């Protein structure tokens, strides 16, 4: 028997709320399958299971908030025989069938809807059912906001709090140093234009994918920037999972990781980025994408700033930033030439690396971008 526990979906996550199960009890699952949706400070995340087997039982109900590490479900591993469960444990966890006003009131009064008996059409829980249930429950006093106000502002607030906690921790704990240099993007953009001309519109590559790939490839030779600093020491990670900062429409940002970024060809990387952006905005990120990042790249796109000096996302140790791509000149062969420039920057953890190596990392990114043939090679 294996326990599926509340995953830690971010450095500062302490607890999560089960939104719902996506699989039925008795269903077979494989490693990597999504079995639950968990509400966290970063929105609703799809949680993957790490054991192949059969779902034996669920231990908490949708709506329950439990600390990280709490067992949520029991999974019988392949090849083991079912245990005889006592009938009391075989509670069926169904979808709660309640009207909007009943949900609203239940939340306001702190009532667990799964424990309320519905007397409406088809057993639906209606307002009166919640009111009846409330008579037997002590109402918490702290709730003063109205339900509508709160549900609107709550997710944005929670995300802001999560960002605040991570950034505060970063600046308290990590001795940052910053480096920046200007890269001539003229040749790479020229290459990109020719490449895109031959691609269907949906498969065109944006400059952002090129920057991300350059950073990922360069990191292969700079292990001290790719890994996690935890419990007083740094652990290098072999896989390069670049977290990619995505700002959300409702405010806030997430940086889900593209697993094995350096192993993706340009087209695959572009598709992965587009997929992440749309899933981040629709709230369907996977747990591994939020926990497996080993380094972050932020690219402020077309907002007009030349340089971004980022704050490292703990427990990572480096953040590579790209400012907006702008018109500029470069000096070559004693003359000047109009071109496109981008400022690359590095925020790194001085406990793990030094400026010399950081500077070499930025130079390596620059070399890759200035020699596009190498960047476009589909090396695995």
């Amino acid at each position, binding site marked *: 028997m294996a326990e599926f526990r509340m995953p830690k979906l971010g450095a500062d996550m302490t607890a999560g709320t089960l939104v719902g199960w996506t699989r039925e009890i008795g269903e077979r699952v494989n490693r990597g399958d999504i079995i639950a949706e968990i509400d966290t400070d970063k929105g609703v995340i799809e949680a993957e299971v790490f054991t192949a087997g059969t779902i034996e039982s669920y231990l908490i109900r949708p709506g329950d908030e439990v600390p990280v590490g709490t067992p949520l479900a029991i999974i019988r591993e392949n090849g083991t025989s079912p245990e005889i469960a006592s009938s009391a444990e075989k509670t069926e966890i169904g979808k709660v069938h309640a*009207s*909007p*006003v*009943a*949900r*609203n009131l239940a939340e306001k009064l702190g009532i667990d809807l799964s424990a309320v008996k519905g007397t*409406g*059409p088809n057993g*639906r829980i*209606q*307002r009166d059912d919640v009111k009846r249930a409330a008579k037997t429950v002590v109402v918490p006093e702290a709730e003063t906001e109205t*339900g*509508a106000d709160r*549900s609107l502002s709550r997710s944005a607030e929670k995300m802001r709090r999560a960002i605040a906690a991570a950034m505060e921790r970063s600046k308290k704990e990590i001795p940052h140093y910053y480096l920046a240099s200007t890269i001539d993007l003229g040749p790479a953009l020229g290459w990109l234009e020719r490449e895109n001309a031959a691609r269907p519109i949906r498969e065109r590559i944006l400059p952002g994918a090129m920057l991300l790939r350059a950073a990922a490839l360069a990191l292969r030779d700079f292990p001290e920037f790719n890994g996690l600093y935890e419990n007083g020491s740094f652990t290098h990670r072999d896989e390069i999972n670049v977290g990619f900062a995505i700002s959300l429409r409702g405010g806030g940002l997430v940086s889900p990781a593209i697993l094995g970024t350096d192993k993706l060809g340009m087209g695959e990387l572009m598709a992965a980025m587009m997929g992440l952006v749309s899933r981040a905005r629709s709230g369907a990120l996977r747990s591994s994408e939020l926990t497996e990042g080993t380094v972050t790249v932020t690219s402020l796109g077309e907002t007009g700033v030349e340089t971004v000096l980022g704050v490292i996302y703990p427990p990572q140790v480096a953040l590579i930033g790209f400012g907006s791509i702008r018109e500029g000149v470069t000096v070559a062969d004693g003359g000047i030439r109009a071109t496109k420039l981008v400022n690359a920057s590095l925020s790194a953890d001085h406990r793990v690396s030094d400026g010399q190596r950081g500077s070499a990392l930025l130079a390596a990114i620059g070399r890759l971008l200035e020699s596009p043939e190498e960047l476009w090679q589909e090396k695995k």
Partner: protein
Amino acid sequence: MGASVKTTYREAVRAAMRESLERDERVFLMGEDVGKYGGAYACSLGFLEQFGEERIRDTPLSESAFVGTGIGAALGGMRPIVEVMTVNFSLLALDQIVNTAATFRHMSGGQFSVPLVVRMATGGGRQLAAQHSHSLENWYAHVPGIKVLAPATVTDARYMLGAALDDPDPVIIFEHAMLYPEEGAIEDPGSGFDPWHSEIRRNGADLSLITYGGSLPKALSAAEELASEGIDAEVLDLRTLRPLDNACILRSVAKTHRAVIVDEGWRTCSLAAEISALIMEGAFDELDYHVRRVCSEEVPVPYAMHMEEAALPSVARIISAAKEMF
């Protein structure tokens, strides 16, 4: 509120027009059979004798022409009341109403307004078949630049016309043909009559029946029957179909948590659909059950009595929609 007088809806419409004609020289009545015949629904009986041919004008069967004439007269400083026999016939004048009356203030950069009042009968229930029985109020309620009223009580029939004539812009008044013989008491509104908001005709705690015009008596009957079964229904009379009184609708739904919209128009793209969307946008978290609509069946209104009855909203259908929510 002053003294109340018992009368019929038809008498109330007649009294309203008579008062307007007596009070203001610029007011005149124009339409098919409004003069010699006294009006298709006898709303102007005796007017030709009292006010003469100049002010009570029979027109040919030419809705586009006489509604257009009304627009011209309004632009020229008059206060015309144009009667269109049924909303089905008004489609011939749709161009004048939508393209001219509704747009003139805008097209002239605010220099001209069209103080026109168009009264028309609407609705089924009299075995007049598919070309005289429809409820197309929503067609007009869709159009910016015009206002739409639907008097459902004798008091509103008596006083909405005066308020419409006082308005500087085109106002369309829908009189449900089944209401003309309805009896009721005209309440004296004093000086504070305002047609531009909805009214709660019956207070209730469990359910809002949202309706207007000819469906109001059905909703009130349904509410009485529901009360005998322990369901306390509120009945909201929209009165103004454009602009809608959003606040009143949302207040009622926030109180009762359930809404049935009763609208004699066809369900698809109906006023009921608009009100339902309004409730989703403004009171979703208050709902204990999804909004229900009781509308006409999606067929041309049939001639045969039993089929016509089956096609139009009925007290029984309102009750069954309401009971489903509990």
